[in-house]
C-alpha cells in the first residue's frame, strides 16, 4: 500500500516539475516574443498555455485520487495540499504568459527600448519563476525564501517602468496606445512575480509545515 502511495507521490512530483518547466517555457517564450517582436514565439507561448491547462487538470486529478484513496496524513498531506495550491498559481502564470504573448502582436517596443526597464523586469520575473520551480524540485528552503525577497525588486521595477511609460507618453501623445499596452504587459509580469512568490510560499509550507504568511 505504502509502496503504491510512494509511487504516486513520486509521479506527482514529476508532473509538477513538468508543469513548472512548461511555465518557464511559456514565460520565456512570451518575454522573448516581446523583446524581439517574434510572432512565432508568441504562438509557442500560447501553445504552452494550453499544455499547462492540461497539466493542471492531470495534477489535480492525481492529487484528488491520492487524497481520497490513500487518505494521507502529516507531511504527505501537506505536500499534496501544497501541490493543489501550487498548480493554480502555476496555471495563472501560464495564463498571464499567454496574455503577454497576445499583447506582443500589437505592441512594439520604442526604439530606445534600453531606456525602458521592461526587459529587466521580464528577466527578473523569469528568474523568480525558475527559482520557485527549482526550490520545489530541490526542496530548497533558502531558495524559496529568496524568491519571496525578489518580489519586492520586481514591484520596484514595475513602478519604475510605469514612470518611464508616463514620461514617454508625455513626450509623445501618439505613443499612448502602445504605452498602455506596455503597461499591461508590465502589470502581467508583476502578477507573474506574485504567483511565483505564492508558489515559493507553498514550497516553504510543504517543507516546514508553516505558511510564511503566518496562517
Amino acid at each position, binding site marked *: 500500500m505504502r509502496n503504491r502511495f510512494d*509511487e504516486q507521490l*513520486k*509521479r506527482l*512530483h*514529476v508532473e509538477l*516539475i*513538468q508543469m*513548472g*518547466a512548461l511555465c*518557464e*517555457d511559456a514565460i520565456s517564450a512570451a518575454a522573448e516574443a516581446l523583446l524581439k517582436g517574434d510572432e512565432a514565439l508568441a504562438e509557442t507561448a500560447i501553445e504552452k498555455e494550453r499544455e499547462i491547462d492540461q497539466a493542471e487538470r492531470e495534477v489535480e486529478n492525481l492529487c484528488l485520487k491520492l487524497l481520497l484513496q490513500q487518505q494521507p496524513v502529516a507531511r504527505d498531506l501537506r505536500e499534496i495540499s501544497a501541490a493543489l495550491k501550487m498548480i493554480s498559481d502555476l496555471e495563472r502564470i501560464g495564463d498571464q504568459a499567454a496574455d503577454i504573448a497576445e499583447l506582443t502582436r500589437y505592441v512594439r517596443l520604442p526604439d530606445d527600448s534600453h531606456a525602458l526597464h521592461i526587459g529587466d523586469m521580464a528577466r527578473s520575473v523569469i528568474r523568480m519563476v525558475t527559482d520557485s*520551480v527549482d526550490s520545489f*524540485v*530541490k526542496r530548497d528552503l533558502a531558495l524559496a525564501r529568496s524568491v519571496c525577497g525578489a518580489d519586492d525588486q520586481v514591484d520596484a521595477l514595475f513602478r519604475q517602468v510605469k514612470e518611464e511609460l508616463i514620461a514617454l507618453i508625455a513626450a509623445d501623445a501618439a505613443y499612448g496606445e502602445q504605452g498602455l499596452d506596455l503597461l499591461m504587459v508590465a502589470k502581467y509580469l508583476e502578477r507573474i512575480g506574485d504567483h511565483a512568490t505564492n508558489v515559493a510560499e507553498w514550497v516553504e509550507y510543504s517543507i516546514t509545515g508553516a505558511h510564511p504568511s503566518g496562517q
Partner: protein
Amino acid sequence: MKRQIFRAILTVALAVLLSGVALIMGVLCGYFQDRMTAELAKSTAYIAHGLETQGRAYLTGGLPRDSRVTWVAADGTVLFDSREDPAGMENHAGREEIRDALLLGHGAAVRHSDTLSQKTVYYALRLEDGSVLRLAETQYSLWLLLLQAMQPVALVVLLAACLALWLAGRVSRRLVEPINAIDLDEPDSAAYEELAPLVGRLRSQNLRIRRQVADLRRQREEFAAITENMSEGLLVIDRETQVLSYNTAALRLLGVEGPVEAGESVLALDREAGFRRCVEEALAGRRREELLGDLCRRVLASPVEQDGAVAGAVLLVLDVTEREQREALRREFTANVSHELKTPLTAILGTAEILENGLVKPGDIPHFAGNIRREAQRLIGLVNDIIKLSRLDEGGPTAQWETVDLYRTAEDVLEQLRPAAERKQVTVTLEGGAAPVRGVPQIVEEIVYNLCDNAVAYNRIGGSVAVTVSAGTEGGRIAVSDTGTGIPREARERVFERFYRVDKSHSGGGTGLGLSIVKHGAAYLGARVELDSEPGRGSTFTVTFPPVGP
C-alpha cells in the same frame, strides 16, 4: 514442526491410553461374567444338595437373598420361585438353560434386559429326580459398570493425559532443538542424518549465492569504473523518469551538485525544453538528439525496450564545446584561406589586365611585372605554409627523427634572414651554445625560422633581435626576443590561430600562418611554446624541447 510432533505424540499417547482402558474393561467384563457363572454353579450345587437331602422345606429356609431360585419340574412346570408365585408363571421348558440342563445335566445362559442396563446370568442344574434347579443373578451391564467406574478412570486418564502432554512437549522440543540450532549461513551436517542432504544442498547454494553476489558486485564495479571514467554523461532512467544509474560526468554536464537521491526524477536534474523532449521521445520509443540551449551540450536519448515495450531510456550527455569550437575554427579557416588566396590573385589579375590592354608605358612594365612576381611569390608562400600546416595536422612528415643542434639551426636560419634584417636595419644576435634536441630537422628549422622571421618582420626599423640557445636539464631551449610592437594581452592566445594578425592592416606581409606552424610543429615534437610580451617594448617567444633521452 514442534507443534506437529507434539500433536502426533499426544494423539498416540491418548489413543493408547483410551484403547488400553477399553480393552481392559472388555476383558474384565468377560472375566467377571465367568466368575459369576462359576459362583452361581457352586451355589446351585449347594442348594441342589440341600434340596435333595432336605426336600422342599430347604427352599423355604435360608436362601441367598440376592439370587433368585427357581425350581422347575421335568416337564417345565415351575414348582417354586423365590420371588414370584409359581402358579402364575409360564412353562419354563423352552428356556435355554433349562433345556440344556434337561438334556445335558446343567446349563447356563445370559439374558439382557430391555434397557440393556442389566443382564441376568442363569445357571440350571438337573436334579436326580429329573427336575431342574435354576439360580439367577442380576448383574449390571458393561456400560453401567463403566459409568460407575468413570470417576477413578477419568482421574487416571486425566493424570495420564497430563503426563502425556508434558512428555510430548519435552520430546518434541528435544527433537526440534538441533534443527533450530542449524546455522543457516554456515550449516554443518551434525544434526540428523536425514537432514544431511538438505544441509549439503543449503551449503552449496549458499556458496553459489555468495559467488554470484560477488560476481554481480564486481560487474557493477566494473560498469561503474567504466562509466565513471567516461567524459560523456550517462543516465539510465526507467519508465517513470526515475534515475536508475548515472555517472559523475552526467552531473557535471547537467550542472547538478551532490549525489542523486534514489528514485529522483531525471527532470529534477534538468528541465530544459530540449532535455524534456529527449526524455519524452525516448520513453515513447523513439531516438532523439537535441542540442541544449547553450549549444555546448548535446543530449542523445535512446529507448530501452524489454519484451516489446519501452522499459526506460539511456541518455548520453556530450560536451560539444570543443567540437563546436573546432567547427567554428574550421569555418573561419576556410573563409580566411579563400580570402588570403584571393587578395594576391586579384592584384595579379588587375595588373595583368592593365598590361594586356596596353595601358602601361614600356618603361613601367618591369615595375608591374615586379608586382605580379611579388604577389605570385606571396601566393606560393601561402600555399607552402598551408601545405606544411596540413601535413602537421595529418601527423607530420614521415621524415626520420634525428638529434638536431638548435644552435646550428639558429645559425643557418639567421644566415637566411640576414638580407631581410639588413633591409630593416635590425641587429641580430645569437648567444648560447650547442643544444641538442630530438626532432625532425625540417620541423625544428620551420619553428626557428618562423620565430626569427616574425621577430625581424614585425620589428621596428633599427630594432634588434636576440636569439638565445641554451641546454638545460629540462631540455634544449631557444628564446627569440625582439623589440617590436609587442602583442596585447588579449591577443596572446589568438596569435597562434591561423591567419590571426595583431596588425589587421596586413602591412607586415607574411601569411599569418607562421605562429600557427610554430605551435603545431612544437606540439608534434612535444615541445612547449611560451610567449612573454610587453606592448610597445617587444615580445619573447621561448620554445622548450623535451630532454633528449638516454
